């Protein structure tokens, strides 16, 4: 599949159903080291995103879809995840603005811009046990693939795998940002819910491209 506007819509649609399906698990992760609402928050957000993507304009570009996604997340998620994901998708939209078809480098740029947005707004770095760990691992893997001249789908697949590893890597970390940071050692052994949702979102991006 070519990564065009239809892909972007497919991504968000798939993300919405995957999040809906796994909202319970995300909530459980957040209940363990946060306040238990991450699944609910993300589900509310992506339900809103899906609803606003039912009639995308004919001449819309992928960036428009990403921007709409960002605005809907900002206005419906709340909590920490809302503004962070919102900023990520805003920056991602910016990174691919004007492009009708995304190639491997575009995908890398999109992901990298998203990561930059989250780091900047959340003042978090890799290793802080946040969604940044999943995004950063995704960008690293995507960069490796892009440097090997992989195509866009391969870059997305690499990113999805990276995000999953990044999310898993948070299990053993102490948290330095977000609610889990209050727990000290007690957070160790638990996966960061935001990193887990990032892994879901990026896997959806790759699967939308495969379909």
């Amino acid at each position, binding site marked *: 599949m070519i990564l065009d506007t239809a892909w972007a819509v497919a991504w968000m649609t798939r993300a919405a159903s995957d999040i809906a399906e796994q909202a319970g698990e995300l909530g459980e992760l957040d209940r363990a080291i*946060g*306040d*238990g*609402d991450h699944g609910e928050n993300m589900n509310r957000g992506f339900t809103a995103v899906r609803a606003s993507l039912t009639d995308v304009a004919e001449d819309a570009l992928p960036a428009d879809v990403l921007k709409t996604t960002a605005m809907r997340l*900002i206005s419906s998620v709340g909590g920490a995840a809302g*503004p*962070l994901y919102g900023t990520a998708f805003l920056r991602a939209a910016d990174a691919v603005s004007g492009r009708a078809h995304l190639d491997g480098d575009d995908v890398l740029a999109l992901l990298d811009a998203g990561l930059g947005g989250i780091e900047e707004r959340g003042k978090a770095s890799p290793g802080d046990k946040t969604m940044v760990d999943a995004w950063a691992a995704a960008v690293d893997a995507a960069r490796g693939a892009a440097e090997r001249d992989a195509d866009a789908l391969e870059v997305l697949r690499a990113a999805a795998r990276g995000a999953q590893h990044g999310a898993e890597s948070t299990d053993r970390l102490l948290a330095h940002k977000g609610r889990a*940071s*209050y727990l000290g050692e007690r957070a160790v052994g638990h996966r960061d819910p935001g990193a887990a949702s990032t892994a879901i979102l990026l896997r959806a991006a790759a699967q939308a491209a495969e379909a």
Partner: protein
Amino acid sequence: MKKLLNDPRRFVADALAGFAEAHADIVRVQSSPVFVTRLRMSAGKVGVVSGGGSGHEPLHVGFVGHGMLDAAAPGEIFTSPTPDPILAATREAHQGAGVLYLVKNYTGDVLNFETAAELAAMEGIAVRTVVIDDDVAVQNSEFTAGRRGVAGTVLIEKIVGAAAERGDGLDALADLATRLTASVRSIGVAIGAPTVPHSGKQSFELAPDEIEFGIGIHGERGRARVGMAPADELADRALEAVLDDIPREGERTIVLVNGMGATPPAELYVVYRRIAERLRGIGAHIERSLVGSYVTSLDMAGFSVSLLSVDDELLSLWDAPVRTAALRWGM
């Protein structure tokens, strides 16, 4: 889960609708986006706006009214509101003299109020933000999200609201709020976990003889899980934690013993008795007190203790008339 609700998804909306009905003489609850304003704004006054996740009632909506908040944006349960309702609240609270945001220190609240402030600035509304972080349970280090904002918020909202009502300007109010934030410290103790309506599950599980010391107001775990103890011992430990951290030993202080939602008044008074006794013992003077459930965590059982160091001016602001759903005197 046994709660008085219809559908978890309607819980916040239903509660707000009931709140609107019950206090139609004090507040107006707006919808799309959802926020609460006082019925009559004072023209020319700086607007004082707060907000945060729902489930902490009466905070914040119960403190909207004359002498306290001009508007509040309640989010979903334990979830910061999005920028839209904050911005809408800001527009209504802006009476030409700018708007002060009082924000509890949680990543979500800080970020969403930040976005709202940017949007308000683009509309020409001067906004200042003060982040409240009174919870001594959390280390304020580079390695955490910083101290949380908890029950001390009520004390700040009351005093800043009174100063706004007397006509203080935006910068003066921001300075006052900053000073108050530096002088208030709190800590919470949970003896029973809250149940979040959506999940229907308790936020954490406590054995019959366990409590959570240093609990947050969203059921976020605290400093440590420790054994249940007599009320006096719990009060002592809570007070010590607060005194260890509060700047100036708080010779003159306002004390808040706050219930977490499922703790009846008599138990709070048992705790307050000991707090008062101990403070007297160290030569501190309780100038004013509040004992009751002002910042709850759904149906969490337990209490928090907040101390605010005060002087004559702060006391006169505390005593100034206030008329809100949950705090009312002098009018």
